[in-house]
């Protein structure tokens, strides 16, 4: 099976935070963005919103930083998992990730990161504008490449409309 991943288009994100709420509902049965694996980062005075979550790195620094070898990338699903039996709660993984992919659940007091909802991520499903897409990595990369080329080399094209039409 081709590897799939979550892709974010910050231009499309309206900042509504439905992704956070559905994530917390899925994982905790409560509505609480503080327990969400995805977070929308905002720069309100510039109108910027960026949803961000664990990128499921091929060579995860969080796993390297873990003193207990509790973090592993699942070969089959591509998801980076924490073995909570081994985890001692040192939070080194939070510090090691250069992108802030790991967060902390303040209620259960444990590190948390995206698990792709077992293969059908609800954040992508609920996103009203298609700002979060769960797609095959190689195809998405080409799609993004096409967008980039269109933006910089074919200025006459309205790339936004083309991408939307393709969804």
């Amino acid at each position: 099976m081709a590897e799939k991943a979550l892709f974010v288009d910050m231009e499309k994100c309206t900042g509504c935070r439905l992704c956070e709420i559905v994530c917390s509902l899925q994982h905790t049965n409560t509505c609480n963005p503080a327990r969400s694996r995805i977070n929308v980062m905002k720069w309100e005075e510039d109108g910027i919103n960026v949803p961000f979550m664990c990128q499921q790195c091929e060579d995860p620094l969080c796993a390297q930083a873990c003193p207990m070898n509790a973090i592993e990338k699942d070969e089959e699903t591509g998801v980076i998992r924490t073995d909570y039996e081994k985890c001692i709660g040192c939070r080194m993984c939070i510090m090691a990730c250069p992108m802030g992919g790991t967060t902390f659940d303040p209620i259960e007091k444990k590190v948390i990161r995206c698990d792709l909802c077992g293969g059908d991520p609800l954040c992508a499903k609920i996103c009203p504008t298609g700002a979060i897409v769960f797609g095959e990595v190689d195809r998405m990369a080409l799609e993004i490449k096409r967008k980039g080329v269109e933006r910089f080399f074919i200025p006459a094209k309205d790339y936004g409309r083309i991408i939307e039409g393709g969804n």
Partner: protein
Amino acid sequence: MSEKYYGWAGTILDVNLSDNNIKKIPLPMELARKYIGGSGLMASILYRDVGPEIDALSDKNLTMIAQGPLSGTIVPSSGRYEIYARSPLTGIIGRSNGGGFFGPELKWAGYDVIIVRGESKAPVYLWIDNEEVEIRDAGHLWGKDTWETQRIIREELGDHNIQTLKIGPAGENLCFNSCVIGDLSRAAGKNSIGAVWGAKKLKAIAVRGSKGVNIARPNDLYDLSMKLMERAKKDPLYAIHTSVGSPGWVSDPLAKKAWAKEERLQEIMSDKFENHFDKNLSCYGCPLHCSHWYTVKEGKYKGVKGEGLEGNAVIYGGMVEKIYNSAFICAYNTLCNKLGLHIDHPGCAISWAMDLYENGIITKADTDGIELTWGNEEAVLTLTKKIAHREGFGAVLDGYPIRAAEQIGRGSDKYISHVKGNPGRGPGIELSLEWTLALAVATRGRDHLTGAPWITTPGYFPELMPQKHLEKLGRERFGDADAIAKPWKVSPSKAKYVYDLENICSICDMTGVCKFMSEYTLYNEGIHLDDFVSLLSAATGENFTAEDLVEAAERQLLTERSYNARAGLGRDDDYPNAFDWEEKRGEPHPLYEGKLPITLKDYDAVLDYYYEVRGVDKESGQPLEEKLKSVGLEEIVEDLKKRKIISKKKQ
């Protein structure tokens, strides 16, 4: 997050700024069930604690902020907050509603309602960090605009995810035009509650919550919410919300309908904002994303940025002053948000003054030397700032409508338009009989958001809502094909139509859901009464019925009507001033001359029908004893009896 509460947070926060006493009161479940939350709970508390003898700007008035049991959940568009106080502007019920992210954050911090009593000697702000509640010095924030205030609070508390409500200079200066601003532009605009905060020296409330909200039946709430989001897409209005937002369904059709002859209006139709709009933005949890990030890219207003440009900004920052410049409207919108001004008010007051100037009632001698000609952009910006600082002629205009007209005299009251002291200038009462009625009977004064229909106004959206469809809706809902389709037909179904819209608006305000997502504007496919029943039951685990929700809405609205009755209001106050003008003065009202196809007698008749369905005495305009008792408001009956106000049904 207390384990026993689902949907509700479970705590009322009661803060007294006079003695710094902070109390946390568990939310009694019987109150939660009876009043639901938001506006329902606060109307009841305001009635109990702030009588008609209390000066709105004194330490005895209180201000409250609440969200509802659906706030901060997965329910679409559940991001509203509601604020209450006795209004300094009108002296009656003061309430307003805003969006953004403050309401949900308050829920996640664990509070359903914040009550702020007393007054501080020096400026303060309230900092709520889950259980920790602190009253902090705001000396360094006083005088700052709303954007700076949020920025400084986040910086000094070291957390970018803090959400804030705050006042700008307008509230500090006890301005009647002032409001409370959430985020950058999420105004709770009506009824001058910013001035109540200013009098209390309360600059801001900052909140951060990580406790979340329990959901009784998470899977059901998820399924229902996803279904409602999907269904809403089928509504004819959905695409207007998601593309241009309220300018597309407020100012565009109003321009076509009310001022069709003015060609320059084309310059401020929603498509003319395309150059300024960079991307869509939304409030919490909202698939409609009706807001935009805008930046003005060239010309005089180059560099202006902001968000949340609503149809009313186009009306009050453009249409009423005859300014046909979309870049100016962006500038006006951002200015009002930063100063903490209700976007409608300066536009009302300044356009009124322009009317007076044109008619020679006032001159440059009155206006601090400002040339108040129609379309004068510079004059509008200067006066808007003067209003916020209550300087010179700005201080006079701040008193619009009644106080300003009294101060100027010279027949200037001929040109004001208001209901119960709450101003208006834009189109409204001349659109249809249901508009007239809804604007006039609204408990907080002239009000376009608590029962006035938009989408279903005949001729408003001739393509999306053709006459045949309106007839069908009328038949389905009221058994009367004319109820909606014939704009000026006096009938009981007209009154029932307004009554239903008022109830659904009240249910939105009690639960914390945006009216734009409800059947109020998505009349076909929005969240309907039955959906609210399912959502509330799934979120809270309590079994609500449609009757329960309608009764709760009646309870809120009758509590507010009783509040106003206690302040001396009655039937006479349920008229738009244009209607009885002619009768009283023997001359037509200059603003509505020839625009009203019905007479005072027709309006009297439909008001009678409305009173019948709302449970109000036709003679006095006060709630009937039997009706109040039937919705469990015995305490109000006792209070009104003591004050010799209550009415028994005439046999």
